[in-house]
């Protein structure tokens, strides 16, 4: 019994932290910034690696907000304009797409849940060819610039 439990736990932990696959698409390092209690919007960032033919990220689904969209930033001089991505985010054949601060990102509008640092939430990415890929998004601090760093400043408050 103990062995089964141990194996099950290991499998669960592994599934939550390992990269997610679907056909030729691998998604890794999904992270989001913590949000304030009254916050209405949030964003998630991640890396998509494509080991097959050209594909496109066309949608995203999550139950932490009323709307989930794909957005990008257009830098127009010193003005930052955020826009919905029409037609999806291209993931080139045998290439990658990076959703990161200042560029493409998954946008959550009408947050129904506070994103708390240290917690995780599920996110489903929908690809044109590869179909759905489910990932677990790690929540970092409000001003985090990446998902991998361990930030001492999270201890501040």
């Amino acid at each position, binding site marked *: 019994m103990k062995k089964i439990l141990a194996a099950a736990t290991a499998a669960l932990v592994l599934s939550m932290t390992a990269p997610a696959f679907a056909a030729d698409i691998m998604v890794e390092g999904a992270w989001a*910034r*913590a949000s*304030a*209690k*009254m*916050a*209405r*919007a*949030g*964003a998630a960032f991640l890396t998509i690696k494509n080991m097959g033919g050209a594909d496109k990220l066309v949608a995203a689904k999550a139950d932490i907000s009323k*709307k989930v969209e794909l957005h990008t*930033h257009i*830098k*127009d001089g*010193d*003005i*930052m*304009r*955020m*826009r*919905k991505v029409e037609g999806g985010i291209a993931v080139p054949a045998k290439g990658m797409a990076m959703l990161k*601060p*200042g560029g493409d*990102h998954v*946008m*959550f*509008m*009408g947050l129904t849940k506070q994103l708390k640092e240290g917690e995780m939430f599920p996110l489903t990415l929908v690809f044109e060819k590869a179909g759905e890929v489910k990932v677990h998004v790690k929540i970092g*601090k*409000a*001003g*985090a*610039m990446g998902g991998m760093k361990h930030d001492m*400043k999270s201890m501040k*408050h």
Partner: protein
Amino acid sequence: MSDEQNSGNNPGTVTKAAIAITALAVVVFIGWSQFRQAGTNSHDVLETRTPVKISIGGPFTLTDHTGKQVSDTDYRGRLMLIFFGYTFCPDVCPTELNTIAEAMDILGAEKGKRIQPLFISIDPNRDTPEVMAEYVAQFHPSITGLTGTDDEIAQLAQSFRTYYARAESSEGGEDYTVDHSATTFLMGPDGKFQTTFSYGTTPEAMAAGLDKFINSNS
């Protein structure tokens, strides 16, 4: 070595040519330096992007995140570090406020006292003092959030010549985003404009810049 004369030529020709070439060179040099000077004097354009004739910044009276009414004169003696943004902004504003927070940490507590970071909302419709208080607390205790009426914000943004405009989302309603300048402004202890930090400036570069202006304003 021994022959210093051009064979067969009149020595005067060489000398005349040398004088003519030198004279020409002198004329060209004078002309060029005059032209260069004329260019510099006529525009008074500084190395920065801001032409010297246009003023940046101005007086303001807004509401801080504790609900208190404040004016720019309340911050005299400290250098105001001003960033215009809004809380619905999920990317650019957290990035810039994080840069400011890390820059303040690099500066340290002592020098940090000379700086007053201000996060001014260009979306006062949604950014009430309560929302601002919760928001700035996520980044750094030194950051004060300011909000106000649409008119107060419009007037202030105009005095800083900083752009902002609502971009209606596809569905409209309360989920609109606001396009805005992402430049951070540094004002001196007298409230007058000193410099800007462009979006993308690293915390280290900002801290170094702040340090420099703290020293030059001591």
